[in-house]
């Protein structure tokens, strides 16, 4: 069918379906993912087509969802768990940190726990509290987990499939405010042809590197377009994976541009942006013309939604970061 217009939501749905067709061990678990198809409809029609034993509506208990998913993985299944919103992953935190991330090393490799944890993340949808968080720092700091973000429909489609095929546990973040944005997807391309854990230069440039992931990629691409009008050439890197971090890709770009802006929705304090800044500075100490500039959510809890526009880094704040980097 060649490429086709699709949304991230539909691409994820198609990717899940493909994975379920390819491997009968793939099963989905979560709250309301069955008849309803999930509150974002990412699992729409899958229960109808694959049955209640492969698309499991769970009790309302995230630790239970995570713990039983790990148990299913121990039995040879490949569970894909949906956490309804970012702010509801915390009841499962203990199972994720104490079991999911550690069983492989605890057993000196005897045990594999190929669980994918899908989390619709981030703000910008005018939601009530706990529905707009960017909590990737917690999981990135948890060694034993892999943490990835899709940012567009094309990636969503193959990334979810690769995440399911990966033998390590993967936290799979989905930028909820972009679920319905459209893009071209090649539904025939084999998922295995790309590398889930390598960063992607989505726009080449020469003056400043901008590293970003998930919902911020579009913001940064827009910023790059705006910057171009002012004669500034930004190189935008969609990191896709933040654990592992494709630090080579970032340093390669920074060696060229000499300047780096990291843009994220999460608060900056002790965050992925901090890590990138620390690592890049270590590796590019002599090529950096300016310190790494972080453009991030403010160091506060996510605010009431009427204030979220002021909280989330937007095009202007990214450009401001670029200005600050260029001011050195």
């Amino acid at each position, binding site marked *: 069918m060649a490429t086709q217009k699709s949304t991230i939501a539909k691409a994820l749905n198609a990717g899940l379906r493909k994975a379920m067709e390819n491997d009968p061990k793939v099963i989905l678990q979560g709250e309301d993912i069955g008849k309803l198809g999930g509150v974002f409809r990412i699992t729409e029609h899958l229960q109808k087509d694959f049955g209640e034993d492969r698309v499991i*509506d769970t009790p309302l*208990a995230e630790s239970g969802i995570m713990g039983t998913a790990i148990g299913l993985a121990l039995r040879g299944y490949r569970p894909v768990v949906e956490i309804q919103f970012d702010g509801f992953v915390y009841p499962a935190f203990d199972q994720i940190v104490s079991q999911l991330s550690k069983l492989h090393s605890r057993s000196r490799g005897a045990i594999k726990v190929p669980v994918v944890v899908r989390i619709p993340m981030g703000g910008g949808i005018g939601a009530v509290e706990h529905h707009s968080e960017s909590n990737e720092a917690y999981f990135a700091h948890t060694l034993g987990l892999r943490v990835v973000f899709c940012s567009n429909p094309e990636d969503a489609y193959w990334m979810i499939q690769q995440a399911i095929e990966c033998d390590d546990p993967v936290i799979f973040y989905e930028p909820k405010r972009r679920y319905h944005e459209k893009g071209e997807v090649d539904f025939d391309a084999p998922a295995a042809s790309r590398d889930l854990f390598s960063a992607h230069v989505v726009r080449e440039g020469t003056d400043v590197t901008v590293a970003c992931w998930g919902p911020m990629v579009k913001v940064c691409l827009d910023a790059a377009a705006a910057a171009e009008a002012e004669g500034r050439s930004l190189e935008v890197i969609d990191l896709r994976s933040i654990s592992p971090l494709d630090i080579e890709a970032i340093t390669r770009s920074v060696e060229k541009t000499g300047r780096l802006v990291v843009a994220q929705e999460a608060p900056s304090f002790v965050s992925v942006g901090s890590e990138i800044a620390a690592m890049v500075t270590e590796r590019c100490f002599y090529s950096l013309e300016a310190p790494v500039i972080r453009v991030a959510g*403010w160091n506060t809890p996510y605010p009431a939604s009427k204030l979220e526009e002021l909280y989330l880094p937007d095009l202007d704040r990214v450009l401001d970061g670029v200005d600050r980097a260029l001011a050195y």
Partner: protein
Amino acid sequence: MSDIDVAATPPVGGMDHHVSVDPAAVEPRAAADGGPDMVQLLTPEGERIPHAEYDEIVDALSHDDLRGLYRDLVLVRRFDLEATSLQRQGELGLWASLLGQEAAQIGAGRAMRKQDHAFPGYREHGLAWARGLDPMRLIAMYRGVDKGAWDPAEFGFHSYTIVIGNQSLLGTGYAMGIQRDGAVGTGDDARDAAVIACMGDGATAQGDNNEAFVFAGVYNSPVVFFCQNNQWAISEPNARQTRAPIYKRADGFGFPGIRVDGNDVLASYAVTTAMLDRARSGDGPSLIEAFTYRMAAHTTSDDPTKYRISAEVEIWKLRDPIARYKRWLAHEGIADAEFFDAIEQEADELGEHVRAATVGMADPEVGDIFDQVYVEPHQQVADDKATFTAYQASFETAEGA
């Protein structure tokens, strides 16, 4: 009969498709009635059923009290409908309707004394009303102006809680505080206090709620767990949350559980009154399962046609909490047409007030992002606020120039 080897036929998708429990097999369908254990004082038809244990409590209510309950029910419903329609018109980000659950909440809320404290979820608009919270505080939260910024101490009504289960433990801890204040079992009606901790049917699956049962049991704390079983947790029916009826959960934690008709304001009032009394007098916790129904969507973002049939909703319409109570009041001569009209009028006024106040509601202060993160100064927040302020100012300067 056939030469196909049935055993060798691989099940579809590599699975045996008979392993799931049929929800209907383990728990009555959502449309079922509450069963013989359910305390009901008013039938759906508005007939008063005598009850050895609870008549006394209801009989102690004056006609004014009884009319007051009606007023509560009607005003809260009107408020709720107004909020739903404000959401549809883009004035609110979201609304979680209490439609159908008015009697459960008003009954429980009016059973509370001033010194009692309620720990709500996110749908307790009736309870909030009974505690005297200005409904506009709820509107402000669902409008995204704030996150529920009232002072719990002022109303004995704590923050709305969105993370399922959290509030039961907070309520239990609060009840432990009441014990330590010596405000249990003194016999002083103005001193002895208790807590109501709310949960939904879905919420009973959550670890926090079960830990709250453990703590309350072990410490014999004055907390009444008030579970509104509205039959649905978004799209999931009771059978996906528990194999046994909810009120039976309590026994295994060492305290009584009671199922009450949550669409019967008198029963909800009576049972909650009895359980709060029990708690205040030092006899410990209890679990009330108010058997009711979520007549509306889960929230305004939800589309229940995806998962439930309208016939079920029709059955529950016949059990409407307000209709049956009105019928009884009229039949008993406690209220007349004039009274009902006056309440209708008041409801209209409330609706108009809520609409006007919502549309005219001021946006939040931008400082709210930073100013109440900590009580005492915090360098990183202060630095961010300074950066933010300078950044904002740079636009003003730019625009001014």
